[in-house]
């Protein structure tokens, strides 16, 4: 998928931002470095929200946008929008729901929910016409089992009425005909074929990526709508097992060990967890990035003298301070200490600005 609109949505005219990191943050490549940039750019809430999307070669796209003078691109493939780029940004944002709704897709597997809901709609729609002869959509084995079981258990519950009502109420709440159309065109049912994102994007004159983001936002809100219902509602079964951990499970385990055993060194934790010591640091950095400052013992990992030296030497643009420059000034500095310090300071700055 073409990535151009990604940079309009997630860059601005204030700060040069690393294009590749932005893409990786959104599709959920949780490396320490990507997560650090997510913190730096205030995008932690969007990690993995565009899970599963395959983007084309971004270099090519960026050079084209640079030629069109929509953005500035430096030699490290960092991006800053121009004035016309900012106008384009406004235009794209106006097609979406407020961007914050995309954050839900970082906490829940919304694309999986979308697949479930679309499949369930097909079954309920054919059922409402008493048609049993149709090609069901193919989704993964467990999902398929889940939906079929759900349908068998609930088909006495006036599902067609329930779906009709749910979608009508929901789209009335959305209160925008363009977005309502984008949602219903994703559905399939009796003598009604859904459209692909390409087809809808042609029809709505926006990029396929914008359609994808609209779908994720809309299905995110629909998911929350279903969460609000009573637990024994037939629809709630469609929302099981969608929650995603903010910190990956393996990092969480390392962090828990670290917190519950203040006396143990990282080397002991590494041997207990049977992982490399560098992996322990990566896990702890991930925890430090996502948790509030108060929940992470920075002092335990950064030697106080080093901390003083870091404070003394830190440049104004903290994010652009490289480890190589830092270690030139502080020879005994470890990489993870440097990274943790950057995280701590960035969080303190972010905390003041919000």
């Amino acid at each position, binding site marked *: 998928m073409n990535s151009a609109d990604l940079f309009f949505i997630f860059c601005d005219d204030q700060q040069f931002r690393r294009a590749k990191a932005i893409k990786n943050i959104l599709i959920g490549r949780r490396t320490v470095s990507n997560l650090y940039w997510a913190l730096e750019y205030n995008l932690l809430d969007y990690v993995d929200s565009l899970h599963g999307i395959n983007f084309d070669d971004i270099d090519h796209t960026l050079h084209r946008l640079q030629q069109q003078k929509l953005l500035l691109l430096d030699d490290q493939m960092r991006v800053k929008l121009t004035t016309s780029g900012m106008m384009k940004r406004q235009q794209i944002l106006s097609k979406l729901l407020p961007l914050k709704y995309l954050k839900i897709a970082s906490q829940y597997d919304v694309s999986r929910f979308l*697949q479930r809901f*679309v499949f369930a*709609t097909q079954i*309920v*729609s054919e059922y*409402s*016409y008493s048609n*049993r*002869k*149709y*090609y*069901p*959509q*193919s*989704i*993964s*084995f*467990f999902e398929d089992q889940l939906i079929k079981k759900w349908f068998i258990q609930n088909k006495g519950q006036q599902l*067609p*009425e329930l*779906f*009709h009502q749910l*979608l*009508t109420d929901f*789209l009335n709440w959305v209160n925008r*005909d363009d977005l*309502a*159309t984008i*949602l*219903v*065109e994703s*559905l*399939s*049912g*009796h*003598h*009604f*074929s*859904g*459209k*692909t*994102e*390409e*087809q809808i994007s042609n029809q709505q004159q926006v990029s396929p990526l914008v359609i994808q983001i609209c779908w994720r936002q809309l299905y995110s809100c629909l998911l929350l709508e279903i969460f609000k219902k009573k637990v024994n509602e037939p629809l709630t079964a469609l929302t099981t097992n969608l929650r995603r951990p903010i910190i990956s499970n393996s990092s969480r385990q390392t962090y828990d060990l670290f917190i519950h055993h203040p006396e143990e060194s990282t080397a002991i934790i590494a041997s207990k967890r049977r992982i490399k010591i560098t992996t322990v640091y990566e896990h702890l950095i991930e925890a430090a990035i996502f948790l509030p400052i108060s929940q992470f013992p920075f002092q335990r990992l950064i030697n106080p003298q080093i901390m003083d030296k870091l404070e003394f030497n830190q440049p104004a643009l903290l994010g652009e301070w490289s480890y190589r420059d830092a270690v030139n000034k502080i020879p005994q500095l470890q990489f993870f200490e440097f990274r943790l310090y950057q995280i701590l300071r960035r969080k303190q700055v972010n905390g003041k600005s919000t």
Partner: protein
Amino acid sequence: MVNLLDELYKYFGFRQFRPGQEQVIQNLIARHHTLAVLPTGGGKTLLYQLYGAISHQRVVIVSPLISLMQDQVSRLQYLGSKHVVALTSTLDFKQRWAILTHLQDYQFIYVSPEMLSNPKVIAYFRQLSVGLFVIDEAHCISEWGPDFRPDYLRLGQIREQLNRPLTLMMTATATQQIQKDILSKLGFASQDVQKVVLPVDRPNIFLSAKMCENQKSKNQLLQSLVSKLNGAGIIYFSSKSQAEQTALTLNRQTGKRVMAYHGGMDSQPRFRIQQQFMNDEIDVICATSAFGMGIDKDNIRFVIHYHLPSSIQNYVQEIGRCGRDQQPSLAILLYEPNDHYLQTHLIENNFPEEGLLQYLYQHPDKLTGNDAFKVIKYYYDQHYSFEKIQKTFRLIQQHRLTELNEMLAYVEATGCRRASILSHFNEQISPTLNPKYCCDHHYDFWRSWETFNDQYLKKTPITNLKSRSNWRTILDRLFLLKN
């Protein structure tokens, strides 16, 4: 004695068998191993599905294309079978385990040959009673065919391990050489197997081919054909990117609704396009030759080949997608001089260069886990010497080039095209054939194709034109409410 027509109606609601179906099912009921060569392709699943329904036995189907297996599961479900599952390498460990430990719950089990080669997997299958063992696309077992899959060669042994169940081998087209090859590789003597071989000839498909001067004139011709030809159509390409690009152009130029459709697509858009094509909301599909379709659409009126097919066999199979409703239909092959080079190039690229082969023979560990080296690994494991594998590849390559040249001869033919195709399968033209409705040899098709179109090709009846602009009306249509 069961009345098969009654059973057909009872399970599927059809009043009539398609050619060959009844004979195959009768063979199976009489417990004869059967080789079915049914060129129309359509209705192959019904063979084992109906047998399974009548006999209440378990059916295991070996199928080579993982991407199509899920479609086949859908198709079986469409026709009313609920206990269907596909066991492929795309499942993760948990899913695989869940299926394997509940195999006895399924009546129809699709499985890839790779999976069955796994000793743990076969152990589960050995605990089941298998009433019918189906080998789909059986021609994949032949080294001489373009779809050769080394994993298929293990199927003879796997059949032994399953205690030699009743076996149905199916393929759409197979020359006599390949038919023989299938039986011998699976360990059957020719007298052990009943053959049901339908004629390749499809009298309702008119055959034509056009030599264009260059790509530009080919594109222009394609554009005017697609603009005017009635009904639904498929255009075949040998590359995904060309299929996508042409779909975009034709969509703009022709006023027809044209979409690309190929194996590289995600399952959801693929499903949507299939469904739209099925519901006559798309007129023309631009597809890659290697990729079949998960649905049976009966009213496809024309198949156009934009690139040269790799063999007469493949060509026959691909044009067989049109006219399944027995109504007049049209096959067009467009050719320009560069197409020959393109295909030759594709064939040459399909074989490893000597240097690579030598390297792999010196570093056999590199052969494992790489799909591209599957065939090489097979020969290596069979202890072929470097000289022997080289010679084998050269022979196969030569064979492919010969097939390509036969295809080219078809394009350049000055005589009857139907006679040219049928001669490959040792068939004669039916004496009842109407010579005015055969091919562009007897009828000046290229000067009067628009008349042909008006006279023979039925338009798709216009249905479903209800407005879909308003989301409320769409919701009302999706869910039929009682009050």
